């Protein structure tokens, strides 16, 4: 109890400073090229550059926070950070709980990655995906057996060790892996799922949403968003 009181007092004291608005950007940090942790331990990637530019245009001070994918939405709605910028596709299911800005990527081309030279039954085999992603619900509906993992890395591991026949994920995430590893190759056609990636915000944060919407629109208009998409090889440009 004593600890509790001291800690509460400490937090209360340190909270005295001014009230200028800082926007806390929540991300996963495990999904290159969208977001990852670089060699210096900082958040980097397409969304880092995009987010910093959006904050500059919307004249906001932004701070980056990493959070587990599983608890990323509950922590947003309870106010631990203010946005989710984590390669999260806009879906109706998520839209019921949180709000999205307009999309800053085209609908994801998702692709199947499997061991090179194998024939995979995409609608009847075992397909891996990250828990709570659009790919996971797509597989569940396709009739294939869905094998879910907490992190993207583990889904690739499952294909390598034969646990899964293939993995379904954003093509932009799989591309560098396929390029690096001769044992892995794309199979089947890419599928378009979801309504593109957008920033997630609390439904009550309409003002912040408008600021980011305007900033994204201005980046779409002057072509700087397309330049970023090309630089990070995210996929189709606008």
């Amino acid at each position: 109890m004593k600890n509790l009181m001291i800690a509460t007092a400490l937090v209360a004291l340190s909270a005295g400073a001014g009230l200028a608005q800082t926007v806390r950007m929540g991300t996963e940090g495990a999904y290159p090229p969208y977001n990852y942790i670089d060699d210096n331990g900082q958040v980097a990637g397409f969304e880092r550059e995009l987010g910093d530019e959006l904050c500059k245009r919307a004249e906001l001070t932004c701070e980056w926070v990493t959070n587990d994918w599983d608890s990323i939405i509950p922590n947003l709605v309870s106010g631990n950070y203010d946005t989710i910028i984590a390669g999260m596709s806009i879906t109706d299911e998520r839209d019921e709980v949180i709000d999205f800005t307009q999309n800053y990527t085209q609908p994801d081309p998702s692709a199947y990655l499997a061991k090179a030279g194998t024939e995979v039954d995409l609608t009847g085999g075992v397909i891996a995906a990250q828990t709570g992603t659009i790919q996971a619900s797509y597989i569940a509906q396709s009739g294939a057996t869905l094998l879910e993992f907490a992190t993207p890395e583990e889904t690739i591991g499952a294909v390598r060790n034969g646990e899964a026949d293939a993995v379904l994920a954003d093509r932009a995430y799989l591309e560098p892996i396929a390029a690096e590893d001769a044992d892995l190759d794309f199979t089947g056609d890419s599928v378009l799922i979801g309504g593109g990636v957008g920033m997630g915000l609390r439904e009550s944060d309409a003002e912040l949403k408008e600021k980011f919407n305007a900033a994204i629109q201005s980046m779409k208009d002057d072509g700087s968003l397309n330049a970023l998409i090309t630089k990070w090889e995210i996929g189709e440009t606008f």
Partner: protein
Amino acid sequence: MFPYCSAPDTLSGLSWLSCYLTTGKHTSLYLSFLTVLVLLAVTAPVALVFGFGGASAARSRFAPLAWLGKAYIGIVRGVPDIAFFLFFVIALDQAFEYARHKIKCPDWDQPIRQGNDFVVCAAAKLPLGDAPQWVHETYGFFLAVLTFSIIFGAFAANVLYGAMQAVPQAQIETAEAYGMSHRQSFWRILVPQMWVYALPGLSNLWMVLIKATPLLFLLGVEDIVYWARELGGTKTPKFTDYPHGDWRMWYFGALLVFYLAFTKVSEVVLDRIMRRLTRGQATMGGEAQRKAAA
């Protein structure tokens, strides 16, 4: 770190490794060991206090207090840890913010619950939205300590409750025959003697606690397992200066060594405490010690 690290792709062997192991990311890994150790050092005594409170309450002669103690032990032990970390912590955080909101913003007219959202005025945020990152991390850490303490406190309460029951009744009777009050016999006779019965159970809890820290990342606190998984994952040249394959085995191997070493140290310390507690007790261990000394 080292001057020759500016072009890592030209390096090989040990010099590559020395650069690789001193990147900013690895420093985060090393610091997270400290996080875990501090967490354990703070949580263990706090949990023990919760446990002692719970156990004393559960055997109280005042019925409502006994119900409270038993309800705490029963309910918290029954709820899965992960559910506790996903929901209880967020609820706890919201309770703090709600209390601050009531005090700091009395003339706020919007509802606090708006659909799924929990909205309090900016001044009631904990920590404040513009607080530096370390304050947020400290706060997350504080919530983690509190949550771990509540969970492990409930288990400890059950262990201590059993230990209190295990102290021979004759001891208490003798104390009362000497004219000690209920309170006196509790503090002077029961509590000093119960630890020897509690220690095996408590040491189990300690071992489980050591390995429970990955739950921290659910609160955004990065522990050693998070960093091991992050650093060990396949790294393609596009996103790092130090590309490598799936090295998680090596990182988890290092964690294994850490955990085993830590367990070993714990065992040695616990053995020593056990020897100290056994001295003069009416248990088999105490009897053996007495014979060895004679």
